[in-house]
């Protein structure tokens, strides 16, 4: 096997797989972080009429996880000693209903604006407080990283494809004489291209194993790589890779190699 060809095929694969694992890791951190802050996050509603979850869900089409009624008695208790009995009775009569609602998913800033707008237009609801200013900065930072990594991942996939297609084209050019002779003896293009198919398979396996090992090494040594502030967030939220995720690294590696090699093979076959 030509070592130069093997390396030129493996390096782009390693780059794309490494980007993919970074993409997976950031996704996991953001999703896990979303769940954590979503559990602590709630919207406060003030309504002139009592609210029922089913009515609220059907009217607003918002994914509401739970709705909690803040007891009027508990609120009024705070005022009992500070106001006169008449005022207290008036308050008791006029005081609206207070609710907190928890959402199924942590919303983005734009989604939060939409939710607020929808809730405010439901009959009886007087005030909606979403605490949008407290929308987590770290979450926004993660979202930014997630977007950047996604774009980077797509760019690297395109770049890798182009690089690998060029490598396979060069291979075909270098071996055109051999392929012609095989063809003249009735051999198929696939028979002639066995060496490049073997390079593709071996490169996929080696690059997948290499990337998985590197990612595990990085995960085990996060303390040396990240600042303490980021380390606490990352180590808490970066769940271990599942078997399916590890398999997906191998699958992506094989798919990219095979599409590249068989794409060029098909082109040669049709010639």
């Amino acid at each position, binding site marked *: 096997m030509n070592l130069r060809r093997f390396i030129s095929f493996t390096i782009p694969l390693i780059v794309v797989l490494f980007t993919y694992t970074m993409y997976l890791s950031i996704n996991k951190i953001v999703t896990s972080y979303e769940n954590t802050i979503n559990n602590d996050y709630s919207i406060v509603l003030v309504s002139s009429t009592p609210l029922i979850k089913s009515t609220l869900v059907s009217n607003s089409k918002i994914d509401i996880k739970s709705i909690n009624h803040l007891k009027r008695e508990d609120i009024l208790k705070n005022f009992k000693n500070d106001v006169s009995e008449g005022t207290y009775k008036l308050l008791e009569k006029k005081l609206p209903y207070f609710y907190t609602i928890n959402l199924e998913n942590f919303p983005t800033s734009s989604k939060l604006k939409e939710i607020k707008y929808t809730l405010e237009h439901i009959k009886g609801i007087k005030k909606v407080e979403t605490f949008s200013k407290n929308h987590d900065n770290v979450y926004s930072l993660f979202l930014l990283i997630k977007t950047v990594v996604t774009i980077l991942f797509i760019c690297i996939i395109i770049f890798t494809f182009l690089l690998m297609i060029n490598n396979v084209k060069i291979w075909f050019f270098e*071996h055109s*004489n*051999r392929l*012609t*002779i*095989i063809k*003249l*003896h*009735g*051999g*198929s293009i696939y*028979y002639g291209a066995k060496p490049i198919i073997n390079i593709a398979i071996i490169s996929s396996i080696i690059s997948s194993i290499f990337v998985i090992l590197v990612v595990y090494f990085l995960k085990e040594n996060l303390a040396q790589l990240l600042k303490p502030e980021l380390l606490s967030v990352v180590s808490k939220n970066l769940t271990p890779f599942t078997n399916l995720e590890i398999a997906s690294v191998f699958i992506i590696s094989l798919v990219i190699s095979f599409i590249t090699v068989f794409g060029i093979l098909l082109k040669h076959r049709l010639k």
Partner: protein
Amino acid sequence: MILANNICLGYDNKKNIIQNAKFKINNKDFVFITGSSGSGKSTLLKSFYSDIKLKSGTLLVNKFDLKNIQNMQLKKLRKSIGIVYQDYKLIKEYTVEENIMLPLKINGYSDKLSRNQAHKLLKHVKLPNKAKCYPDELSGGEQQRVGVARALSHNPQLILADEPTGNLDDYSADVIWNLLKKANEQLGIAVVVVTHRIPDNFGLSFRKFSISAGEVYES
């Protein structure tokens, strides 16, 4: 074996090189195709394994109709033929042994059987110690002998040879002619050879096709 009926051959829209050729080559025939340089001898030979497409007419080779032959059929046809090229067409990355094994491997024979057959043929072409050599390490005559061994390796029904002894020394030329004669006489393989000059005292009955001004005639 080969049946040509009014075949015309040529490149693109240029004038036909072979015009309305009509002939039949039977099993066990030994045929020489002669003619001056550029007369179309090699073009005619290439048409037998569909390296050049027919412009018109009908050409049957080993019962395959080459007029509109499909890819799968073409592979089958080429697997049933042994071809000896003037420029040898050996694969330089393969050893001599691997080059001879190529048609056998393409035909699906096992490694062991292919290797045994290659070694047997290397003895016939008087190169028993060159199995592990690469083509670049051999002389022209030796390379052509490997080419003939490769053409014979899978016991084809038909051997096509394009100027097989064109640039070779007398010894290599003799080895090659003897092998082709043996293949024809003892194994009953039909042999079609394109050549400038038929060897003296060939010692085997043969047919001779001549090409002149695009016409093929038997003399």
